[in-house]
């Protein structure tokens, strides 16, 4: 029987397998940030262990970093201690680090692809659930907890069982103005936050093939919001074109050899998936969330749903609770929902194309009175590129704030937070209660919808302007 893309990558990394035991799976790249690593490094020290492959490990500071005044010491002493702990650990164990202020610093899932460290067919892990982002290259990439971070540091492997395989096939073409973010939000609404549980999702079909690498990263990034272990897209010419010439991409004869291997990384025609979902791209429209989990979404043209419209009592109760938390009334058109904050950034939508999409909409327009718009590039390289293209001037002329790179308001571990009761349109990945600040209310949107929303102060698609 044929094998899926994920089977092929997984099988190529099995160091040891034995009946009744998990496989020992080799890890090609381990990404590290300050939040989920300190206790892992402590564990190594307590057991007198070293990092087996510091040359396959790279660290960056992203979650805690302020997005203003980055050359000053971090004001919050707890955040500062966490960042300093990462610096000490990287120095002690010989791990390359991109600290605040460094031109290579940025969100861990933005810098891997940017450096060309993320390549097809690799296994990539990080103590961060959005590691699934790297699956856009045909890598098997997934998030792990701190115990597993320590395990990878010590052994460069993980103890794993092969997940099940799920296909999400997106046929047809995305209509004009409908983006990768709208697509993944619609997929999650369709299959639910537990729909991918225990599975690796392979995204396939014409609409996926037509996406840029950045769009593919947005889709794979939010696989975890559909409950999946990982998301993957088979590598193709789009992938190779993105990679070629990047600092850590193969070159010369290696480049040709690598490409030949990468071309074999596609699901065989006779492979069988454990689960399959088919979506028609041509029916999609800009999509936003109205609730407190990423599955609670609807087309922007729709209204806040009636909880009683959910047949499943668990979904009904969740919707009732969500509307209460979100301060929304069932039946309200989503276009009438007003926001006070717009956030463009995160590992979901903090790359250069995302900033271009937002800038295109807001160019020559103004952020509405009473609305705060934050633009936070995913990395210092993205920031530099955007400035070279003059995007920063487009944003500041519109009245938006142009910030330094980091995770920022996606999860508010730095000072960029919502206050209780504040409502955002956010290009990030989670609309959980309190995610962007205690009592804050989040609507997940695409960069284009975020920019249009900033202009009107209400959830708005660019076509509505």
């Amino acid at each position, binding site marked *: 029987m044929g094998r899926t893309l994920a089977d092929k990558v997984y099988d190529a990394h099995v160091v040891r397998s034995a009946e009744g035991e998990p496989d020992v799976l080799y890890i090609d790249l381990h990404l590290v940030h300050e939040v989920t690593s300190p206790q892992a490094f402590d564990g190594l020290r307590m057991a007198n262990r070293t990092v087996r492959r510091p040359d396959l490990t790279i660290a960056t500071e992203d*979650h805690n970093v302020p997005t203003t005044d980055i050359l000053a010491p971090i004001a919050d002493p707890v955040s500062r201690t966490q960042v300093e702990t990462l610096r000490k650990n990287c120095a002690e164990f010989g791990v390359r680090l991109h600290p605040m202020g460094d031109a290579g610093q940025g969100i861990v899932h933005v810098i891997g692809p940017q450096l060309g460290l993320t390549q097809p067919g690799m296994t990539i892990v990080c103590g961060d659930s959005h590691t699934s982002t790297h699956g856009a290259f045909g890598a098997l990439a997934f998030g792990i907890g701190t115990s597993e971070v320590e395990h990878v540091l010590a052994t460069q492997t993980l103890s794993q069982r092969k997940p099940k395989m799920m296909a999400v096939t997106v046929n047809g073409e995305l209509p004009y103005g409908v983006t990768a973010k709208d697509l993944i939000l619609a997929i999650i609404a369709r299959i639910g936050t537990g729909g991918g549980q225990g599975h690796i999702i392979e995204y396939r079909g014409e609409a996926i093939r037509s996406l840029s690498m950045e769009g593919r990263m947005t889709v794979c990034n939010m696989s975890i919001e559909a409950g999946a272990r990982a998301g993957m897209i088979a590598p193709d010419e789009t992938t190779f074109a993105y990679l070629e010439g990047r600092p850590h991409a193969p070159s010369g004869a290696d480049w040709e050899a690598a490409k030949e291997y990468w071309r074999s990384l596609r699901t065989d025609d006779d492979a069988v998936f454990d689960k399959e979902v088919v979506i028609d791209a041509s029916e999609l429209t800009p999509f936003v969330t109205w609730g407190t989990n990423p599955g609670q979404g609807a087309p922007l043209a729709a209204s806040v749903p009636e909880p009683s419209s959910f047949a499943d009592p668990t979904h009904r109760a969740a919707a009732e609770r969500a509307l209460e938390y979100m301060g929304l009334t069932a039946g309200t058109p989503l276009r009438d929902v007003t926001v006070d904050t717009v956030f463009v950034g995160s590992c979901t939508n903090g790359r250069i194309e995302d900033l271009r999409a937002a800038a295109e909409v807001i160019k020559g327009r103004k952020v509405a009175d009473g609305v705060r718009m934050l633009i936070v590039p995913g990395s210092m390289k993205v920031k530099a590129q955007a400035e070279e293209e003059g995007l920063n001037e487009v944003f500041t002329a519109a009245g938006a704030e142009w910030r330094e790179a980091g995770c920022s308001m996606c999860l508010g*571990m730095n000072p960029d937070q919502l206050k209780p009761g504040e409502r955002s349109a956010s290009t990030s990945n989670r609309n959980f*209660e309190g995610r962007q600040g205690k009592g804050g209310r989040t609507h997940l949107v695409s960069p284009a919808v975020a920019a249009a929303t900033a202009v009107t102060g209400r959830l708005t698609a660019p076509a509505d302007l």
Partner: protein
Amino acid sequence: MEAFTTHTGRAVPLRRSNVDTDQIIPAVWLKQVSRTGFEKGLFAAWREDPEFVLNRPEYQGASILVAGPDFGTGSSREHAVWALQQYGFRAVVSARFGDIFRNNATKMGLLPIQLPEDVVEGMQDKIAANPAKEFTIDLEARELRCDEGGVQTFEIDDYTRWRLLEGLDDIGLTLRHSDAIGDYEAKRQPWLPVTA
């Protein structure tokens, strides 16, 4: 890791679905660099409500959390597991768990018990009717028993069960295969990137 063999204790019903790890422990608590003290952050936002189930006197000292489906979705933060354990929970019962949470739990010795949704709801009803009710979890037998009779079997693979029963660490187990790891490394493709 703390071994898990059998455990008897009272339970608390958390009738919410999609209890994500941001609710279990909000991000502000993740700034700590130690492994202790996370019990204070457990459900920090929800615990501000005096009526929240964990604040009710009849559930003080309960050690089994019986939650709605899709418990532990979202962020990979193992701090969620540490917070539950340090608060006093030894097991969580739900109809579905987030994959990373479940993995983290079994690495730390917090037992995730997956049961059908109607069974979980039935347990929640029984606990609400009598919060003093005790349950016994017997990992060897893969059984969850109620003090008034009634046995529910749950699934857990042999290997994870063995590791939990023995309280074994994965790292030590994997390091026994160091030679195999070295052999694998010798055969990796030459173009694979290094960060150095």
